[in-house]
């Protein structure tokens, strides 16, 4: 069988979208991937996307795993989380419940990745519907500080901050991969992946 030579950049950053069902994980992903907003809601099972992006002058690949908010089986969710290098934990600012759920997601990710410094952003989506806001900025920021992560508010509809959250996370991942702890954590979780020696070529912010 002939191998198709896929000339791909060596650096791949694996991003995982987590959050309750219907908060706009897929909408954010699709806006980032294709610059389009999908109005109709269809629950995701688990989709993965890959895109070449230029991050601070360096071409890298972003691999996005858009998970199901409704996934019922913890064991299966663990397996998704294990494959990630950075997490976008999304909630809807007009839904307090989805904000509360981020606590569980955070805990689960930390348990699976076993590192507090894992690249992670708390994302409050749907700011275009600010009039229906249930979660205040202060509330969300307080939680983010508690976790020592950044909080960003986005709108998948208006594309506000969409690129920012992905690029911010990519930078975090790039940085994280350079730290000994990050290298250890990632190689532990992805024993079969080729070693990320090229990671050092990342430009620091």
């Amino acid at each position, binding site marked *: *069988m*002939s*191998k*198709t*030579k*896929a000339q*791909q950049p060596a650096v*791949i950053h694996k991003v995982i979208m987590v959050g309750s069902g219907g908060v706009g994980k897929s909408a954010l992903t699709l806006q980032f*991937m294709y610059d389009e907003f999908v109005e109709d809601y269809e629950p995701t*099972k*688990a*989709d*993965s*996307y*890959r*895109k070449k992006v230029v991050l601070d002058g360096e071409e890298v690949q972003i691999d996005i*795993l858009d998970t199901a908010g409704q996934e019922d*089986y913890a*064991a*299966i*969710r*663990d*397996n*998704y989380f*294990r*494959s990630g290098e950075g997490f976008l934990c999304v909630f809807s600012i007009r839904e307090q419940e989805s904000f509360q759920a981020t606590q569980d997601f955070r805990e689960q990710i930390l348990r699976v990745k076993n590192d507090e410094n894992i690249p992670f952003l708390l994302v409050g989506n749907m700011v275009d519907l600010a009039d229906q806001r249930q979660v205040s900025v202060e509330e969300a920021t307080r939680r983010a500080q508690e976790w020592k992560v950044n909080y960003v508010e986005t709108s998948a509809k208006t594309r506000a901050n969409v690129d920012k959250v992905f690029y911010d996370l990519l930078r975090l991942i790039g940085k994280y991969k350079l730290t000994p702890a990050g290298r250890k954590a990632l190689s532990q*979780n*992805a*024993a*079969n*992946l*080729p070693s990320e020696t090229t990671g050092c070529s990342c430009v620091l912010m």
Partner: protein
Amino acid sequence: MADGLGRILSKPVFEPEQFIAKLSGDGEDALLDMKAKIHMLNDETAQALKKNVYKNYSQFIETAREISILEGEMYQLSHMLSDQKTEMTKMMELSLVSDRAMVQGSKGEDEDKTSPEEETRRNLAFLLEKVEGCSSVVDAPGRQLVHDGDLVELDTETHSQIHRVHAFLLNDSLMIATWIPQRRGPMRYRFQGLYELDGLAVVNVRDTGPVKNGFKILMFPESHMYQTDTAKAKRQWLDALEDTKKKKAVKDKQKKEAATRLAEQQLMAALASPGESDLSKSNSWSTYVPCTLLPAYFLSADWLQELPEDLDMYIAQRNFEGAVDLVEKVYDHLTVCPKGPALKEFRARIEHRVKQLTDGLMSELQVSPERSLRGGPRAARRAVTQLIRLGKSAQACELFLRNRSAIIKYNIRQLKFEGATTLYIRCLCMVFFSSLSDTAKEFIKAFPGHFGCYSAFVIWAKQELQTFFSIFRRQVFESKASLTTIADCVVLARNQCQELGSIGLDVKFCLTILLENSIQNMIEETRDQLIDGVKYRANDDLWRPMNHLSQTDCDKYVAEVAALGFDIKPYVYDKCFIAITMNSVQFAKSIVNYAEDLLKLFNSELEDTIAEVLAAVYKAQVLHIETSLKSEQFKKEQSLILKNSQFLLEVVMAKIESLYSSMNVPFPVKLQQVNAHFRKLKALINK
């Protein structure tokens, strides 16, 4: 002239109208003459016809017989043909299963859903044929194939193609097998890994880059990416995975136990063969160590490689001996092989064949209505021997005996009941007991040393005996036959039964138990009849000596009675008178008859009963004599009555005593007491 007429009439161009016209012209005499001639001709023809019929009669019979034989053979032939046809369809299924599975893979899930579960189950057996090292997968009970298909494995990082795989989605797990290039035979894949669906994370890879139709399987610490040929196939895979996962989750609780057991098993296998991990270096799927070729050296012999096919062929040809030889050979060979998963797998393949072989042999012994039973026990011996060699002696024994039961039943049904009970029973006993002894002999030959089976035979014999007895009872005891007939029949059965003892099979006690109640009832019934008879005759008894009018007639009668065993000569007086009444002679006759029958039935269990009933009948008669002696009406006849009682109590009793002694049975006390009655009666007179 008649000949001439015959010739004219039998002419092919004979024209009746012309002939009649000519005749009618000759007048009345000629017509009458012609009429006589035609009569004569008619008779002659009839006679000739009859003669011809007789001449050909034997040929007719022979032809008819040939035809019936031919008919039977045709039946058998058609049966054999249909047998062969089923055999062929079985073979077709055998060779088509793999193809069908491939079709299923490409046609997808829709077809899969409609196909019955058992078919998918059968497919698991074919996995053994196609995938090397998957015996542990197939072993798990209740596992079914849900979906399968060819996939290309991609590198998760670079998305470059690694190799071709064939994935099998089972109802509880996903099995991946890698394709082995340059491999002849049906084994085209090697087991790579088995993933339980519980924690299996499936990711739909969107067609964003150059790679289309991909999906990922995440199973910590591994992740794999696969590519299908078409978008539709990918959709089917994702749906099937989703669906199966859901279904599995529904019955997760029960499954969980089984799953952990399986994981343990595989872990054990991995631990048992630590050397294998080297060979799987290219393979990062370390949780499940794939089977290696370590014992391959032992399994690589040509004859071993071809063995499964050879076995299939032998089974198809019904060459059971050859197949069993082969199985024994391979088992011998396998015992020296080192233990390992490859051996286990090979063993599983062989065992699959052995099961088929066993089924074939069992169906050989199966009793089917169309199959001829004429083959007799020897025909079954072949199949039985092979089954024993395969270690299935219990099944062989059961089937063999069932077969024999059918033969016995058939033989008994062949017997025609033709009026005479004794005759029929004679045939019945002959057929039954000779079949029983045939079976016993055959059994000893067929199952030498399998003592465990012998008890099964004994139980079988007892059951057959019961069946036999139910027929016997219906014919003998329930047919209102006389005691004499019954006694004869019982004696016949007992004698036949006795003969079985010569081959070491004693069922006599069973027969005795079975017969006991019926005989007892019959004896008592007859006793009641006799007592009733005594009472009835007593009412009419006028105590008159017999008058035969002439000496010749008298002599004739004396001779007649003497033939029955009584000498009544001393009682003859006045040439033609006999001092014994008709009643006494009749009683003597019936009591001796009864005694004879009873003694035929004699055995130690019945000894008391026999003595009792004889005494009871006797007592009834004695009572009659006693009342007659006391009665005023017969005052004048007292000496005659005394003579009669002396005849009955001494002469007739002596006869019964001699019957007893001829059987070497001591004369019972009860009858001796009856005998003593005579003196009592005498005393009664003298008072």
